[in-house]
C-alpha cells in the first residue's frame, strides 16, 4: 500500500495500465492514457506497442518531455514509424489494434461517449466541445476499448446528448447491426471503481470498487441504474512500485495532478 496520497490521475493511470497485456498494440491519447501505456510497458508489458493518432508507431516516453498533442515532435520520441494519420487509423480498421483508451464529457449506460455538444440540437449547442478527434475511430475500430474517467454524476448520464463515439449503442446487438464488425467498450475505469457490461443487454455493471469505496457511493454518483456482478471485487491499490515508476515518467506533474 502506498504511503503517499494518490491523485485521481495517478489512480486512473495505474488501473488503466493493469488492463494492458504484453505483446499487444494500444491506441493511446496524450495525457493519462499515454502514461498508463508507458507504465505497462515498463512493468509487465515490455513488448507493448504504443500507437498515437498523429501518425506514430512505437514511440517511447521521455520523462519531462511528455507531449501535449498527438502530432508534435515530442510525441514521436524514438518512434519506429510515422505512417501518416489516415494510414495509422487504417491499421485499426484492419484489426491490428488490440486496445484503445478513451475519456469523455458524457458517458451513458451502454458506454457511448459524447465529446461533441451539450444540448439537444447539434447545430445550436448549449456548449460546443472540441469534438471527436480520433475517439470515434478508436471506439469503432479497436478490438477492446477502455474508458478512463473521473466518476461524476453529471458525466454518467442515462443517455448522452450526442453519440460521438459508439460503444454498445442501444445494447442488444445494435453495434453489430450498425456495421461495426468487432470491438466495443469492455471496461470503464473510474476514480471509484471498475465497470463492465452485461453480456446480453450490454448495460453497465459494477465489477470492482477501489479500496474504501462502497457500491452505494458508486450508485449515488451515477445517473443511471447499475447492475453488479455476483461478487464485486476490490481492486489492489496502486503499489509504491507502480507509483514511483509512474511519477518518474511525469516529474513535472503535467498530467498527474
Amino acid at each position, binding site marked *: 500500500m502506498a504511503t503517499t496520497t494518490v491523485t485521481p490521475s495517478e489512480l486512473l493511470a495505474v488501473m488503466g495500465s493493469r488492463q494492458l497485456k504484453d505483446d499487444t498494440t494500444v491506441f493511446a491519447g496524450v495525457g493519462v492514457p499515454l502514461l498508463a501505456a508507458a507504465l505497462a510497458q515498463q512493468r509487465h508489458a515490455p513488448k507493448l506497442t504504443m500507437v498515437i493518432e498523429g501518425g506514430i508507431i512505437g514511440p517511447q516516453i521521455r520523462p519531462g518531455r511528455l507531449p501535449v498533442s498527438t502530432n508534435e515532435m515530442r510525441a514521436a520520441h524514438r518512434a519506429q514509424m510515422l505512417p501518416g494519420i489516415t494510414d495509422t*487509423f487504417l491499421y485499426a480498421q484492419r484489426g491490428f489494434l488490440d486496445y484503445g483508451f478513451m475519456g469523455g464529457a458524457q458517458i451513458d449506460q451502454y458506454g457511448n461517449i459524447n465529446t461533441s455538444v451539450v444540448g439537444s440540437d447539434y*447545430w445550436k449547442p448549449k456548449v460546443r466541445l472540441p469534438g471527436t478527434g480520433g475517439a470515434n475511430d478508436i471506439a469503432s475500430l479497436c478490438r477492446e476499448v477502455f474508458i478512463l474517467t473521473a466518476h461524476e454524476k453529471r458525466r454518467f448520464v442515462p443517455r448522452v446528448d450526442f453519440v460521438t463515439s459508439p460503444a454498445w449503442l442501444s445494447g442488444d446487438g445494435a453495434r453489430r447491426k450498425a456495421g461495426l464488425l468487432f470491438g466495443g467498450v469492455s471496461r470503464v475505469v473510474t476514480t471509484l471503481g471498475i465497470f463492465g457490461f452485461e453480456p446480453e443487454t450490454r448495460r453497465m455493471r459494477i465489477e470492482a470498487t477501489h479500496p474504501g469505496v462502497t457500491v452505494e457511493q458508486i450508485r449515488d454518483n451515477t445517473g443511471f441504474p447499475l447492475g453488479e456482478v455476483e461478487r464485486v471485487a476490490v481492486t489492489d491499490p496502486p503499489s509504491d512500485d507502480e507509483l514511483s515508476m509512474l511519477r518518474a515518467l511525469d516529474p513535472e506533474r503535467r498530467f498527474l495532478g
Partner: protein
Amino acid sequence: MKDGDHVVAGGCLFTRTPMALVREVLRQRRAGLTLSRNLMCTEGELMMAAGAVNRVVTAWMSIGLPWGVSKVMRHYVETGKVALEEWSHLAFGLRFRAAGMGVPFLPALTMLGSDLMGVGGMKTIADPYTGETLAAVPALFPDVALLHVSRADRFGNCQIDGYPHMDNDMARAAATVIVTTEELVTDEEIRRRPDRTVIPGFLVDALVLAPFGAYPHEVWGRYHADFDHFAEYTADIDARGVTTAVADYLAKYVHAPTTFEDYLDLFGGERLKRAQDAARELVPGVSSAHA
C-alpha cells in the same frame, strides 16, 4: 483564392500549419470561406474571429490540452455565427484520400452507428458482395489547398520531414494547390533524394519560399511551437473576452506588419532561435543546408 471558396489547410493542429498563407488570406479580408482541417488550432480561431469563414469542417478544435477548450470556437459556434461540421479523424482523412484517388466515395467501417453520421450527411452502402453495411465516406474536393512543407524545388516538387499528416492526399484532392516551403532547394538536391518527395510538382500551382512560414506553430526539426505565445494569446482572451482580444491580435499580427520580416520581428531573433534550438534538441539533423 476567392470569397466563398472551400479551403483546406495542411499539417495538423499546431504542426506544419500554413500560417503565413492563412495570414495572407486574412489580410486580403476574404469572406464566406469554408475551412477544412482535421484538427483545427489557432488558424481556425483567427479565421472565425476575422469573419473569413462561415463553416469549418473538422474532427477536433482547440489549441491543445494545456490551453483548454477553445473559447473562440465556443463563442462563434454557440452563437451560430460559424457552423462546425464534425467528421471522425479517419473519415476526414478518407474524404481527401477518395478525392485524391478520383473516386466519389470510399467504403469504411468507421463512424457507423454514431450521431456523427447525420452531421455531415454521410450515407451507408450495402457491400455488393456480402450485403454488409459500410460507411460510404464521400470524397471532398476543396477549391484550394494551403500547404507548408519542409523543402521544395522551383518546379514545386515537395518533401516533408517528420509527420506526413494528410498533405499528400489534400494536394491531390484540391483544384488549386498553394505551397509555402521552409527551404528552396536545387533540382539536383530533390533528384538526390526522390524517395523523400511526397508531392510532385505537377500538382502545385504556386510555391512561395517562407522560412518560419508555420510560426508560431512548429515544423519538424526546424522550430518548436511557441507555447508561451499560445499562453499569452489565451490569457488575453480570458482577460478581455474573445472579440476584443482576437480583434487586437489580428490588428497586431496580421494587418500591421507590412512584410513577413516585420511579422517575425514582432517575436524577435532571440525567441525564434530558442524555438530552433528546442526543435534541434528534439529532432537532431534535420536543419537545412542554408540554416
